[in-house]
């Protein structure tokens, strides 16, 4: 398991190579990448600032991956989340899951991002042309996490 919180960008190829390294029992790798949209709630977004709670964040991500390993037949997972200043189009988060078969890889990948969005201590602040605003939590994210 790898969980990282970092300001710098990440390379999905490197994450996949890490999952595959010496693991020939793997038959499927599912990935999710979240990126910065240039529009939210009908307003143009010029950038994002991402804040987290150091100490708790890493533990919360590790707990989510441990939970995923208990629920689904997966071999390993990588979760990388960026913090700091981001621009539209930038990568925010990577979830990559390796398993023997595709079903559990897809399920675990979706489970991890759903749980991350409702349980990991990150907060987004949007920059607009006329100022900035904190992003409000969405009920649809709670509903997505409640499915599991």
């Amino acid at each position, binding site marked *: 398991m790898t969980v990282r919180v970092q300001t710098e960008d990440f390379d999905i190829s490197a994450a996949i190579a890490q999952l595959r390294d010496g693991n020939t029992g793997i038959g499927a790798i599912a990935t999710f990448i979240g990126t910065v949209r240039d529009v939210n709630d009908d307003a143009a977004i010029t950038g994002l600032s991402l804040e987290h*709670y150091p100490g708790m964040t890493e533990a919360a991500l590790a707990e989510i991956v441990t939970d995923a390993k208990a629920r689904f037949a997966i071999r390993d997972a990588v979760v990388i*989340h960026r913090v700091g200043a981001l621009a539209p189009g930038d990568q925010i988060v990577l979830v990559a899951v390796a398993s023997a078969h595709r079903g559990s890889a897809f399920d675990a990948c979706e489970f991890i991002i759903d749980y*991350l969005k409702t349980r990991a201590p990150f*907060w*987004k602040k949007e920059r607009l042309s006329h100022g900035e605003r904190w992003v409000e*939590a969405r009920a649809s994210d709670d509903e997505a996490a409640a499915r599991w």
Partner: protein
Amino acid sequence: MDVSDCDISAHFRWRFPVRDSTSTLVTLRLVYLARLREAFGSSGETLELAVHDSPSVASAVETLRARGGAFASELAPSRAVRFAVNHKVAHVDQPVCDGDEIAIFPPVTGG
């Protein structure tokens, strides 16, 4: 749970409780995050709390609310506020021990 039930070894910043006839003094580290940090104009503080019974997250929240201003409005019962004690998600009724770190924050919006 009484303060005396708290595990001393679990708390690096343990201070022996000061007791008088009616109350116990606990020292809590408060951390304010995201919108609440901005609203309170502070990233956190040390709160000394004289409690007459078992202290909980709610004890700290009530003390902050009593200050009025942004503390009263942001921590009003109608507002969505989340808590963590020593880096673990916690309910407002969770008991706390001397030396615990309580984080107070809005619902998370990562991913």
